[in-house]
């Protein structure tokens, strides 16, 4: 047990946060915690600059019209992954609103935006222009697919490096 970092998974409802985490780690807790407590915690070891880091992933229940993300869960986080669904552009707006709220609550933190479900090319609705606009706003955007595993490792690795380097 050396270095640990708390990382939050945030995003709209049903964008695939839990699937991404499941793709990435082996969990000891049941997904049931998400619907009961609103959060599920997993862990993944990554190596950054030859140092082992434990990423403690707080998979926080998705946001929808009736329930907002519990920002109290974000307290003490070193960074977060903002997940949106590439087939539902509205989830990007939700991501933006969550990002603003988190920044207002706990300050500026490193984060990476994941545009998930990239395997569903036929219904993919986010254009390259939209992505470029996000990047211009200073966002790091990564296409991912929880189904194929595309971009998942990279996204976590990127965030881990930014968190460590940001120290």
């Amino acid at each position, binding site marked *: 047990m*050396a270095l640990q970092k708390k990382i939050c998974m945030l995003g709209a409802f049903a964008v695939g946060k839990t699937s991404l985490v499941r793709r990435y780690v082996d969990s*000891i807790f049941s997904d049931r915690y998400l619907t009961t407590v609103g959060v599920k915690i997993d862990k993944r070891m990554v190596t950054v600059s030859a140092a082992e880091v434990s990423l403690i992933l707080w998979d926080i229940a998705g946001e929808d019209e009736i329930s907002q993300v519990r920002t109290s869960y974000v307290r003490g986080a070193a960074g977060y992954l903002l997940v949106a669904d590439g087939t539902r552009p509205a989830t990007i707006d939700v991501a933006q609103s969550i990002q603003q709220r988190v920044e207002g609550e706990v300050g500026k933190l490193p984060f990476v935006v994941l545009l998930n479900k990239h395997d569903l090319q036929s219904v993919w609705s986010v254009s390259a222009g939209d992505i470029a606009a996000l990047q211009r706003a200073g966002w790091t955007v990564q296409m991912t697919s929880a189904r194929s595993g595309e971009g998942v490792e990279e996204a976590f690795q990127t965030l881990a490096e930014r968190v460590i380097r940001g120290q």
Partner: protein
Amino acid sequence: MSTPGPAVEWLDSEPDQAALDRNRLAGLLFELARAINRDFAAKVPSLLPADPRLAELRTILMGREQALLARLARRLDDPEQLAAAISQILPSAIVQAAARDERLGQVLAPTVERAAESSIRRDPRALVNILSPVMAPAIRRSIGEAIESMLQSLNEALKASFSWRGLRWRLEAWRTGTPFATVVLKHTLVYRVEHVFLIHKESGLLIEHVAADPAASRDPQLVSGMLSAIQDFVRDSFADSAAGEVDAMRLGELLIWRSDGPYAFLAAVIRGKPPESLREVFESTLAQIHVERRQVLHRFDGDTTAFPGLHDQLAECLLQQARPRDRRTSPILWGLFFALLALIAWGAYAWYERQQEDTQWAAYLRRLQAEPGIVVTGAERRDGRLYVTGLRDPLAVRPEALLDGFALAPAKVIGSWSPYQALDPAFVFKRVQASLEPLQTVELRLEADAVRAYGSAPRHWIEKARAVSRLLPAGALALDLSGVQDVDMTEVERLRASIEAQLIRFDTDAPRPAPGQEAIIDSVAADLRALAELARSLGLSMRTTIIGHADATGKDAPNLALSLGRAEVVRSLLRTRGIDPDVLSVRGAGTLEPTEEGAIRDPSRDRRVSFTIRISE
């Protein structure tokens, strides 16, 4: 600021001492000239308002004090110097003021309160962080005292309880010399601290984890995150943020206790029932960690290598209290063990006894059944006693007497017998034996078809035997008395024969008995008396006939009269010997009944009186 007086002003010129004061010098020289030249002095008045010599004198005499006063004045006028001076004496001044009376405190209190209030309002966390290591022990101590007093009252309450367990514990307290409440705690509070997590409050990251059994723990980092998340969840869902933290969670046998510090909280997973004092251990450990590692905790960013020695510190919280398995088995337990052993032994013995008794009982009942005159109709065991009911001939053996051969306590055996008459031959024989007066001369024999009596017996015995015989039930054995001779009738016959054998002799023609016949008459009289007596006792009627005889010599008529006369004489002779004449009848046979028929007759033998006796029932 006060204006200094002239003297002070004069003194004040001291800093310009280096420069020559011309006015003063001129004044002095002028005064000197006046002093030398008296005329000049008379013409020109002194320029000085006063005599300078006085001033000089004053300088010489008072110069030191004046300098001191001047310094003092300077200090008073300069706020910096004044502050420095007061700062030196303030502590002791406050001490003295406080010692004198209450005024200082009263004066200062409002100001201090306002200051503290504004400070707390500005940053309450600072105060909390400062106070928590200081106050936590105090609070814990006060809680400890409260618990202790509660235990005292518990102790008192338990003193009044007389449950078996309470008595057992009281005995233990007495035996080991420990307070009763401690014994109660020992038995009721059994626990084991299985995990202790030290968790960073803000991020929920695990700072350190210790486990009683490290192999059994799941990933503590995840558990620590989840513990924080659940805390947040409960707080967000059910309480406002001011309500504090969830300090205990229970899951079946598992209990999670949380103790809070300013930067980290300690979560202890406990199995069983921990005493409240355990919380004090956690809180004091947490407070100590905060005191020693305050800065590191404050700056914690996930790097747990910054906490050397923390593992051992936390490991001290891994306490446990096992249910006391006293190696020395308590005397009570031994007592119980022996009691149990005794009970088993007693049970086995009782079972064996019972078996033995059953065997004996069955044998006894068989014996009773076999006994003539006893019929067993029922037998049962009830309330530890043995009951037997049946019929018993009064002449049968007493059932109790049969117990002799059996290992049965006579007091346990209760018989209930109805009387009856048994008809089996042996028993009839016995009853006959019992019914009859035993006689040496009579022998009773049990034969195939009857009980037979042999020998001789008095008449009354025979009569009684007949009565017994008649009482015997029909169809059963009869009593045959034909073999018994009636000794009374024999005597009657003997006496009759004896009397009838007697002949009283007469001389020829003599109506009176020949001389020497007296003895015969006496004998006859005695026999008659005895016979009459016997006949009366046997209920027989008796008739005695005295028959007179004559020999064949002479004529028949006189002979008849003579014979009758002779009979009458004998009757009267007998009467004189006490025989009732009414029972005696007389008859004259004359010569018709000679003693012998045939050729030669002896006449002397015919002159006689003979007797016949008739006896009837």
